[in-house]
């Protein structure tokens, strides 16, 4: 009986925590969507801002964020996955690899504003890429790398050695084994890490602040060496820097809703790929 009560209390504790977390999430989403969804019209999504950003839409910011995330992905995913494959599949365990791993974990803990400063020094100035969506994307890529490496390595670790031995025993090289068995098997896990990381990166403000994001751009910039608008910064600006904050509040909530919906979309795509992959093997 005593054991039963104990496990009942444990259950209450766990279920309670889950409910509280979900409740907060629900409140946040409800608050934002209830104030924001009404300002999302076709015009809001597809038009340029106008009249000192009190009217019009956020099209350039949406495009900017998508382009930015695209550059981040292109940079961080191949390097991150390659690095994890090296650490987990090729490098023999040693003090050195442990130091590398510890450094990567530490990098994940550095505040994002510091990445911003570093990106400014490295990409904008040293590499002479200027304040541009390219510099900002690369900076966000640096920020994302430690997470992608760590989650990919975890996914690779979960693949049992018997899978690797299957192809090796057939005379496959290590590279073929990784390419044909290990990576496809680990893909769902890798993808989860990648999407979570990119969703976070898409919402970052600090790292792009010094490296390329702009307050307002007259027209649409689609070139990777120009400054750009981005949703999180636009939101920040509408809610703190605008001269008539009260007036643009609905627009700020609308922007927040669009950002959240965009991130949801990333996640749905990832879910779909995972689902398709699972039904295959």
């Amino acid at each position, binding site marked *: 009986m005593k054991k039963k009560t104990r496990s009942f209390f444990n259950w209450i504790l766990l279920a309670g925590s889950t409910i509280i977390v979900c409740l907060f999430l629900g409140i946040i989403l409800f608050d934002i969507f209830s104030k924001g969804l009404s300002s999302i019209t076709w015009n809001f999504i597809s038009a340029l801002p106008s009249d000192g950003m009190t009217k019009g839409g956020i099209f350039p910011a949406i495009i900017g964020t998508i382009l930015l995330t695209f550059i981040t992905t292109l940079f961080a995913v191949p390097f991150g996955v390659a690095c994890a494959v090296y650490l987990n599949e090729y490098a023999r365990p040693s003090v050195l690899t442990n130091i590398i791993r510890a450094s990567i974990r530490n990098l994940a803990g550095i505040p994002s504003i510091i990445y911003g400063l570093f990106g400014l020094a490295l990409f904008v100035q040293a590499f002479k890429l200027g304040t541009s969506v390219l510099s900002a994307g690369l900076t966000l890529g640096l920020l994302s790398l430690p997470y992608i490496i760590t989650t990919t390595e975890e996914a690779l670790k979960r693949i049992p050695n*018997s899978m690797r*031995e299957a192809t*090796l025993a057939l005379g*496959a090289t290590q590279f*073929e084994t990784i390419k*044909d*068995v290990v990576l496809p098997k680990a893909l769902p896990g890798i993808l989860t890490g990648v999407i979570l990381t990119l969703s976070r990166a898409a919402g970052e403000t600090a790292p792009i602040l010094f490296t390329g994001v702009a307050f307002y751009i007259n027209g649409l910039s689609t070139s990777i060496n120009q400054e750009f608008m981005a949703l999180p910064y636009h939101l920040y600006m509408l809610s703190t820097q605008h001269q008539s904050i009260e007036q643009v509040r609905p627009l700020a909530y609308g922007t927040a809703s669009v950002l959240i919906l965009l991130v949801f979309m990333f996640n749905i795509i990832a879910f779909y790929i995972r689902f398709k992959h699972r039904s295959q*093997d």
Partner: protein
Amino acid sequence: MDEIKLSAHALNLYFGNKKILKNINIDFPKNQVTSLIGPSGCGKSTLLRSFNRMHDLSPDARIEGTLKLDELDIYDQKNSVTEIRKRIGMVFQKPNPLPKTIYENLSYALNIHKFPKNEIPQLVESALKESYLWEEVKDELKKPAVKLSGGQQQRLCIARTVVLRPEVILMDEPCSALDPISSHKIEELIMILKKNYTIVIVTHNMQQAQRISDKVGFMYLGELVEFDTADNIFKNPANELTKNYVGGHFG
């Protein structure tokens, strides 16, 4: 005198400082089934895996001695390990089909070894027939291999090995994860395969070893205690340890 297909001479194997295999000398006769028996942890799998160089991946494994496939020195750095593994196939304890379709499980090895594309379907079919799996799967070759039953998966793993026409097949407790009917099927398969292949099998099942083996090696604590015909090992063992083990007194 039997023709020798695979042999180890003065083989010592260490994991770190621990000596796991101690001065093993063994000759596996061609086109026969040789069983390795012995209590858990005595080094049967370790010995088996030395022949297709599966220890290459363990950083702390170290090997001394000479292992030969015919006249080929298996550990000579001049010889490509992938070529050796093509000639010495391996079937594992737990069925480990590739995360691909049934057909791709067999065509995979043919593709990486650059068999002519137009011959592959025929080779796949004959390997499946040889492994007595064809009738069961011929209509669902595009099905993911993991959807097969455990016994079918293990026969698929054998087919996947056979498709390359290896000379030797190493099997590490291929029936231990299977039900009696499936393991019986695998046994029958082994009896048929031995006409064309040299088979080395690790087993804990004494009845099985007795049924299928031509020769038997008994290992104990990293040493090959006795190596003889199946009849002698089971009916008339020379060593006291062997006698106790096959009599079921320990292990």
